């Protein structure tokens, strides 16, 4: 029996996966629950593919094994496909519509699957895609995409919307609280 809710946040280095993971972790503490997580640091971050493992109610190690994640939040459509094998049967992937082109596509002329190809590759999982960049702009800052994603994912997380919002308020720079609250709410609406 699984005791924890296992969430994988993936993206490209620099997209704010660490802050997103902190929001989830803080929300767990607000609810008095245990949490374990693991994230990418160091050289691997520089524009590379990054992952954060988060185990809500986790009591043991922080790593999620392949085929066992309950939810994947992907900040990049291509990364959603790259990590899909971590998802358990019946799990959910929430992904941003946008895609950062891997530099290898240009320097080595490697083929990059189109958005439609990727979606076809994910046709057997429950996939929710949102235009996080557009929503973040509407909220007031393109930098709030990660909070848009958390807002959208709130429907699928075993944490209350109030705890998540409180964690967002506690963690983002004070000047950006309003923008991020709006980003969360707009993301939340898209998730319904």
């Amino acid at each position, binding site marked *: 029996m699984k005791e924890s809710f296992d969430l994988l946040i993936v993206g490209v*280095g620099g997209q704010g996966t660490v802050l997103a993971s902190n929001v989830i972790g803080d929300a767990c503490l607000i609810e008095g629950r*245990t949490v374990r997580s693991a*994230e990418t640091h160091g*050289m691997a971050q520089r524009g590379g593919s990054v992952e954060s493992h988060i185990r809500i109610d986790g009591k043991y*190690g922080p790593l999620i094994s392949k085929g066992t994640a309950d939810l994947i939040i992907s900040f990049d459509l291509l990364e959603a496909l790259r990590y899909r*094998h971590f998802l358990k049967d019946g799990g959910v992937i929430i992904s941003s519509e946008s895609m950062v082109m891997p*530099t290898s596509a240009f*320097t080595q002329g490697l083929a*990059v699957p189109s958005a439609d190809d990727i979606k076809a590759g994910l046709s057997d999982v429950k996939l929710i895609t949102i235009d996080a960049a557009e929503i973040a702009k509407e909220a007031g800052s393109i930098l709030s995409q990660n909070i848009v994603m958390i807002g959208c994912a709130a429907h699928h997380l075993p944490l209350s919307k109030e705890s998540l919002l409180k964690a967002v308020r506690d963690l983002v720079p004070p000047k950006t609280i309003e923008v991020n609250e709006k980003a969360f709410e707009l993301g939340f609406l898209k998730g319904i």
Partner: protein
Amino acid sequence: MVKKYMLGNEAIAYACCEADLDFASGYPGTPSSEVVDALRHQKMREFYIEWSVNEKIAFENALGAAWTGVRSLVTMKHVGLNVAADPLMTSSYTGVRGGFVILSADDPYAHSSQNEQDSRVYAKFARIPCFDPSNLQEAHDMMKGAYELSEEFSLPVLFRPTTRICHSKSDVELGDIGENHRTGKFTKNPKQYVVIPVHTRELHKELNKKQGPLARRLVELGLNHYEIKGDSAVIASGIAAEYVQEIIPEDVSFAKIGAYPIDTEWLSGFISKHKKVLVIEELSPLVEEEVRQAACETEVFGKKNGCVPYEGELDPASVALAFEKAGFAHKNKYPEPVAAGGLPPRPPLLCAGCGHRATFYAMKKVFGKNAIYPSDIGCYTLGLQMGAVDTTICMGASITVGSGMTHTGEENDVVCTIGDSTFLHTGIPGLLNAAYNGANMTVVILDNRITAMTGHQPNPNTGKTALGQESPLISLESLCRSCGVELVDTIDPYDLTGTLEAFKRAKGHKGVKVIIARQPCVIAARRAGIKRRKYEVDPETCTGCGLCVKYGCPAIEFYDNKASINELCSGCGVCADICPAGAIKTEGKR
């Protein structure tokens, strides 16, 4: 008591503040760097702190501090401990007065390292205690215990977290910040601190006498403990103990090794109560070897009979597989899904506008593909993707490996690259040696004025100390000249023409030549508020030749036979100099 969601390295740093720490030094290295970074940014407790220029220096500083009676900490990554191995091996003989903790972070799977060595082996080699935390709460609690044990036995304690401890987060219960401060006072005692043979022979005996009581104390402290539940058992250490606890059935006994040396009597007492024992640990079979020595009738499973891999890191699924191979039942089922194939890889890259890329480009243009390019440890190791890195072994080795090659009759040019922090770490003696012994090579110091890869720690070339205080900048130019180098050139890598000329000058000159390619790290420059106008491609003028794309900057894209520049552009302008058609201009200027 307060509970916080924090990074393992932050929890460790916090524990040091609880444990009355008065001295900290270290050299940055992933995954250890955030311990000193957290200590230098905290405001709860005051103490001396420095980023030293290498691990040996950091170690000896902290050892000297501990000899005066204060509690000290030195941090590094596993390969850094190799650099500090010389003082380590004798510090166990001299012992310490104030608590001395050596944090050496291991990196199973080599996420960000050149090898997967196991620091526990060093602790065994030096005969000092080693703490091996299995989770963040334990890492926090053990750090405080490490200082107490160090003072109880007057020995340095090695503290060995792994990447998944350092870079994990969890809810951690914290204690109160320590309020005791000690002032160092050295008491002369040559018989303890001067390791001439006549003293050292006695010190070695004393060290050996400590071993038995030390092992027994670790059991008394509960760091090594077990629960008997059936006639088969699992023994695990470090984070592997967590993976085991997640899947172990109710009727299987469990022993956890949290610290070394392991008390042999205690261990054989546990093993003898079981028919079979499985040992799960990452990296070296250190516990397994002890278990095999202590086991008589009991059958032992582990790395040596192929149940557990020697390399890489474990996770719940791989531990479950080890259970299956050893014929143990386990609680969870793990599917073996296949990853989607054929996706373009997304490896880490030199940033858009990184001065190193421009330097590598010019260097290769002048010296060609037949030249040999030894390189070193830093962001610039990513120059591999530009074909500009032929060797990397350890800190400082670009210059020494390169100079060795020049004395063999090898006819191709040797052009090595080394970062400023790495040059100050162990590059200087190599340069001195190369110049003195008449090597014929070019040394390129990639000077971005900071230790970038590990998170922008300052070094003597930054002009700031660990606490951000201004300090006189060292002069790399004078330093190189004092090493005996006649041709020392400083260039701005964003100035492609000037850079090419400097490389041509170096190529035409015999002996050791140094080119200092100076341009601040783009991330640090952005944080400092430096803004440059972005560049754009005029699609009318672009001929689609693709030369700019080959440059490999993540800001340059290419669609329908035309180049374009994305929002990552930091305005370095090197691509504009590369473009033969003159199609790349600053934004808004046509």
